[in-house]
């Protein structure tokens, strides 16, 4: 099963994890999610602004559901990076605090960090911002479970 272990170099790891956004996960692709950057146990994912994602047609603000998907995807990638191998995961729970309204016509960027993993469970926190990390739109906390292979 060594095929599923992530490469050691950053470019290789990024390329492998980016498959979750281009090919493997249809809904990530449908929303236009892009993996921008990775760390040892951190993933930065962008949700580009698009008219079909608008939740409030009067303000043009993106729907909360799309933000939830962005966070779930970024958190999942952070877990994969922490575990250092591509493996099936399920989200157990996800809590999102909406800290301030998102601005329309500006991409949303999620930065997720897997700060602890055990044999079965991984713990992740994430922030969503629009260019200024010190002024986040949302913060989130999630737990994931590794599936038996």
């Amino acid at each position, binding site marked *: 099963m060594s095929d599923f272990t992530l490469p050691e170099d950053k470019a290789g790891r990024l390329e492998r994890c980016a498959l979750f956004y281009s090919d493997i996960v249809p809904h990530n692709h449908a929303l236009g999610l892009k993996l921008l950057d990775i760390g040892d146990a951190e993933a930065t994912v962008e949700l580009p602004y698009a008219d079909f994602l608008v939740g409030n047609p009067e303000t043009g603000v993106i729907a909360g559901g799309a933000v939830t998907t962005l966070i779930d995807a970024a958190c999942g990638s952070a877990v994969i990076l922490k575990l250092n191998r591509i493996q099936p995961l399920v989200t*157990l729970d996800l809590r999102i605090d909406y800290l301030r309204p998102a601005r329309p016509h500006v991409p949303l960027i999620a930065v997720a960090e897997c700060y602890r993993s055990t044999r079965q469970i991984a713990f992740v926190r994430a922030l969503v911002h629009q260019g200024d990390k010190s002024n986040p739109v949302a913060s989130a906390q999630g737990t994931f479970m590794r599936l038996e292979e």
Partner: protein
Amino acid sequence: MSDAKSPSALAELVHHVRKTREYGQLTDAIPYTRFMGIGVENLAGEMLCRMRYTPKLIGNSFIPALHGGTLGALLESSAIFELLLQAETPRVPKVISLTVDFLRSGKAQDTFARAFITRQGRRVANVRVEAWQDDRTRPIASAHALFLLAEP
């Protein structure tokens, strides 16, 4: 609805839909619910949300299973429509926080959701929501959410 400059257009539509129960007019006016195939239906006198299955909702192609984010979206939409249409909130409620428990994997089929307002105050409402597919007694996801209803 396309007149974004009129702040009352959405409120007027909500008011209209409350009376006519033509829920499709409201969900069609919101680009994201239209994209996700999320609609409001009155089934046996009960207001439910349905997310119609399409392949673009898939998160794991191998199982296949719905993306967790799509279930979060359905649960949150269901809570908002419950507040707009049943609790008759004066404006679109703003979500403060949302906690989703993922209970079972979502199969490649339609998913239903029902929201219950636990408490509605002047400023804040607490809502819980459950989502299921074939069997309502076996929910696939549940959520509780807090909403801000009005500015002070």
